């Protein structure tokens, strides 16, 4: 089912949380709303779910205007950052709750709960309580609970934010696979660009209540629409160009012992981080006091025999210039 949001505005007192936001989520997509905290991404998600009411604008689920529908009637599955499992109910009762309030019979409900317990790999855990599970298990239960009544849309608010790195990694892959299996239109909110790129097939970058850019992960990463997106999606160097600031990603720079052509800068190595396939080198430009980050493959790092304190020449292989980059 497609979701479309058109010209939505939301204020909290004087704070403009969403400033005329329009968004299309294609049927079966797994879309990430990505942005720094306070950018309005969670508010947008809650407006799609009906947990928050927009001051202006419309929300459509498929072709149906649901702007004024209560959350109960929208048939969405919502997964909360801190799981929000019903603490006094067993796992099975939690998962079956959406069916219970819809008056589904006991037998049918039990069958669906078993099916979902299997899907989240918690067979036999149905009679436990949420407090007896680990964070990752709880989040899977929250997901199963949201899916039980076969929602038309699945919405996830920072679903992995409260988990440690290893579990988070595992759950991301699992969510990706799950989405390939059940293909429900899904939107998830995250502030972690790596997570957005790894899980989503579409990424929407938000900032200060507005959408900065929407597209596939490759589009957004390779062709950032503006300086904010470029900056937010990864480490970036701002170098002085001819009368304007140029943006260069650390892996799009090279280091040479000899002075290269135009655009080459002399810089002194101040720090080296050799962990990982790319060696991260930090340099200080000789003419102007700016720090430059460069990532070089381990082999070329060894070839050049770079060491702390060396003065070398760095040059960008690819530069980007943005009209809005006055800063």
């Amino acid at each position: 089912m497609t979701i479309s949001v058109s010209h939505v505005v939301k204020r909290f007192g004087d704070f403009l949380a969403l400033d005329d936001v329009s968004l299309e989520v294609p049927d079966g997509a797994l879309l990430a709303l990505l942005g720094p905290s306070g950018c309005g991404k969670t508010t947008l998600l809650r407006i799609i779910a009906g947990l928050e009411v927009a001051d202006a604008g419309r929300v459509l689920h498929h072709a149906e205007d649901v702007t004024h529908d209560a959350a109960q009637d929208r048939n969405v599955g919502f997964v909360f950052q801190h799981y929000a499992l019903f603490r006094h109910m067993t796992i099975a009762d939690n998962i079956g709750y959406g069916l219970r309030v819809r008056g589904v019979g006991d037998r049918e409900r039990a069958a669906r709960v078993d099916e979902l317990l299997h899907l989240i790999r918690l067979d036999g855990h149905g009679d436990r309580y949420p407090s007896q599970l680990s964070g990752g298990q709880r989040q899977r239960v929250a997901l199963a609970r949201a899916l039980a009544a076969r929602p038309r849309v699945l919405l996830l608010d920072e679903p992995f934010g409260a988990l440690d790195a290893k579990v988070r990694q595992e759950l991301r892959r699992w969510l990706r696979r799950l989405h390939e299996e059940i293909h429900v239109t899904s939107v998830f909110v995250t502030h972690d660009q790596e997570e957005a790129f790894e899980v989503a097939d579409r990424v929407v970058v938000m900032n200060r209540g507005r959408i900065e850019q929407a597209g596939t992960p490759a589009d957004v990463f390779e062709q950032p629409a503006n300086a904010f997106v470029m900056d937010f999606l990864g480490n970036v160097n701002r170098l002085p160009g001819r009368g304007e600031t140029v943006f260069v990603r650390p892996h799009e720079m090279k280091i040479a012992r000899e002075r290269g052509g135009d655009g080459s800068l002399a810089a002194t190595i101040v720090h080296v981080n050799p962990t990982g396939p790319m060696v991260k080198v930090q340099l200080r430009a000789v003419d102007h006091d700016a720090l430059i980050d460069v990532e070089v493959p381990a082999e070329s790092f060894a070839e050049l025999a770079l060491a702390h304190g060396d003065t070398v020449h760095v040059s960008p292989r690819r530069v980007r210039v943005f009209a809005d980059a006055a800063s």
Partner: protein
Amino acid sequence: MPAETKKLRVEIRPRPAREDPPWVRRLAIAATLAIVALLIVIPVVNVFSEALADGIGAYWANLTRDDDTLHAIKLTFTVLPFALVLNVLFGVAAAYAISRFEFPGRAVLTALIDLPFSVSPVVTGLMFVLIFGLQGYLGPALRDDGHALLAYPVALLLVAVLAVAYAIVRPRNRRARRGLWKLHPALVVAGGGAAVFALAVAAQRALGVWPSGKSLEVIFAVPGLILVTSFVTAPFVARELIPVMDAIGPEEELAAVSLGASGWQMFWHVTLPNVKWGLVYGVILCTARAMGEFGAAYVVSGHIAGQTDTMPLRIEKLFQEYNLPGSFAVASLLTLVALATLVVKARLGREQARRAKGTP
């Protein structure tokens, strides 16, 4: 214990960085014990020893042979359920409103809930005498035609019940609303409420439900006792529930709503089970306080033996009449209630700690 081991123990015993010198600890513990013994244990034990001074038979006779005492016990247990029901309804509604909604006057309301705790019970009693007493605002009307006036609160109650029923039955989905359901809820509650109120009052009059020209006694009667007891104990349930609801937060409720639960279902399935221990706790404290209320009850009851004396008032009267065994017998009952409250409270505390650890 071999000397060697002992020596070793002394050496490895870690001394916490912020540990006070032993004499400070001993002094603090001794002072606390002395105060508790002097002010709490000895008087409480004394109540029971005085009550049982003439043997268990005399104790039992003191409680059951005296008609006025029996009446006082019955009256206390008549007033109690009214106060409890009123306070649970008020407490749950107030706590939910305060912890879940932002509205103007929220801070004022929170402060006002505590007012009955800070007002002296005697003043509380006087407040109600000034409203309902013969010289009070409503006094003359109540004296002339008090029973007939009951038609109004009964009609109001009916309107309230119907309004709640309307909120529950009204279809949530706009598309499912047909005919009269499409009317704006504010219009229905205001218009329908006024109509129901007028009809209910008229019907009660027509059917002669309440006798006319009969005076209704509030002060120096049971209704007054119910009013002051409810007022004095009003904060207990709300006070217990507000922090619990704040700590739990609205997320589980939102989850229930997103899963398709109606507000009514959300309340019974999620809100209430989550706060039930707080509620039980509030009810226990409320019970203890309601049974023990003296000052306000003294003012509004008129202290009429066999009619408006509650247990604490009866204790005082027996004491004034130099019937010490009788007085202490009734006092021992109230003390027992207090002790039972303590035990249940401690158990609930342990229960909650156990649940918090994750083995419900």
